């Protein structure tokens, strides 16, 4: 019986990553854009864990722990920024956040 091979994991990871990128490029709500970024990070986590298991070396898994921590910190800061913006502007629509240009 053949198990799920490395490339299956990698393919899934790549698909998730792409979904994340497309989400960032197309969604208009800042919070959803941010969720898509989280999706990108987690798809990479999937790759890392798969590599780690396949290579039989723990480095990848350790990195995943760090990534999760960092993502949590980023989430805290990101949400705070979005809230501060919402207080001043009453919108989180990215299209409207364009005072500075050119």
């Amino acid at each position: 019986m053949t198990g799920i091979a490395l490339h299956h994991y990698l393919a899934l990871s790549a698909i998730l990553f792409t979904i994340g990128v497309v989400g960032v490029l197309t969604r208009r709500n800042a919070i959803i854009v941010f969720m898509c970024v989280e999706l990108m990070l987690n798809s990479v986590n999937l790759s890392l864990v798969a590599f780690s298991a396949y290579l039989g070396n723990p480095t990848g898994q350790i990195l995943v722990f760090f990534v999760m921590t960092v993502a949590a910190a980023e989430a805290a800061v990101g949400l705070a920024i979005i809230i501060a913006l919402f207080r001043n502007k009453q919108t989180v629509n990215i299209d409207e956040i364009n005072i500075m240009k050119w």
Partner: protein
Amino acid sequence: MSIVPAELVAIAPITLLTALSLIVLVIEALMKQSEGVSYAVSVVGLVICLLISLGTIDLTGTAFNQMLTVGGYGSLFSSLFVIAALLTVILSRDYLQKEHINFGEFYLLILFSTLGMMLMAYAADLIIIFLGLELMSICLYVLAGFMRKRLLSNESALKYFLLGAFATGFLLYGIALIYGSSGTTNISYIVQNFSTLSSSSWLWMGLGLLLVGFAFKVGAVPFHMWIPDVYQGSPTTVSGFMSTGAKAAAFAAFVLVFAHPFENAEKLKTVLSLLAAASMILGNIVAIAQSNLKRMLAYSSVAHAGYMLIGLAAANEMGWNGILFYLISYTFMNIGAFGILSLLEREEEKNLTYDDYAGLGSKRPFLAALMSIFMLSLAGIPPFAGFFAKYYIFVAAINANLTWLAIIGVLTSVVSVYYYLRLVVMMYFQEGEMVLVEATSKASSPKFFELRRASMAVLTISAFALIELGIYPSTILTIINNLR
């Protein structure tokens, strides 16, 4: 055999800065009206940290299971970061009070992001680079939005945050691919076995994504788009810090990973050259049309990233050393320029355009003279350090048969003279009414334009550093050349 203490001593700058950050954190947590105390502790701590960083330059080796390198390259860079942080902290005091955002957290965030930068420069492993980069970036996101009541600051923080996190995703994917193809995240292992590993296209893809992540942080075209908006909206001294410390840290990591004599890396060289050329051309040309000085400096910082990338593209000793020299001089000129902007800025984004600077030469001759030095140095006019930095990089490019890149560099520098000197011309040859006195007289607010001696001293020191580096570049160059 006390190995652990020895390792802690070897990475003393990091240890010390961590301790310092924690002390300031505690002060913030426990004290009311802590801003002044935090400021004083930060300044004293950073000075000590600078001395210790300089003192560890002669050390060599690795620490913590080859996670960190010791001394040398990392120490030189951490000295640079600490200098940038120190200048920023001192210049910020006035600014924060003026903008009514004088909270002690500001210094804390600066310290933590400096710590992140140090980790990047001391890294021997991609994991550490990632951690350092994130520590630095997250603090900078907050700093960018530090004026939380102001829309511009909010917007710049949001843009920085979203794009930064987006770039992190790619960087991390790059690290994952490199790890998958080589089985390790240790930089020197990857470099040593590059010729066997380089047959894998995963590795190349990983390197490409890693390069993109770094290119984003240094602000190279086409990954520069965040720079103008973020620099314009952030508190002015923070922009100065981002354009020097953060850029230098990104270059430190860039050099750590990419500045090696890779075999069959012609493609890499092509990519770096294209990034450099695009940054120099776009940055310098778009800067011409700017009227806001912060935005002009932002585009100029894109252009300068291009010049430094020439050093990486040249891929020779001279180019790599040239980047270090460039960064050191660039730190002084840009912090100086942003510093002056921050001193003269008024609430509601006033005093930030070219026109506002008309006539400064007769009203504040000393300040105008300092600004002229920074501008001339940015334009690369001798005898200031900026000239020599460019010169060195261009010679490196010519030695590496990248003469076309050097020519683009020279031509775009000529273009850049236009918008830098425009400010000098404004200050000296135009009459203008720069409103130097604050109109609203709040009893509590300090008199903004009685500039504190500390700020003036910092600016003067920066200007002198530029002259000294321009006339005796050997002093720093000998240190740089003995690093490897």
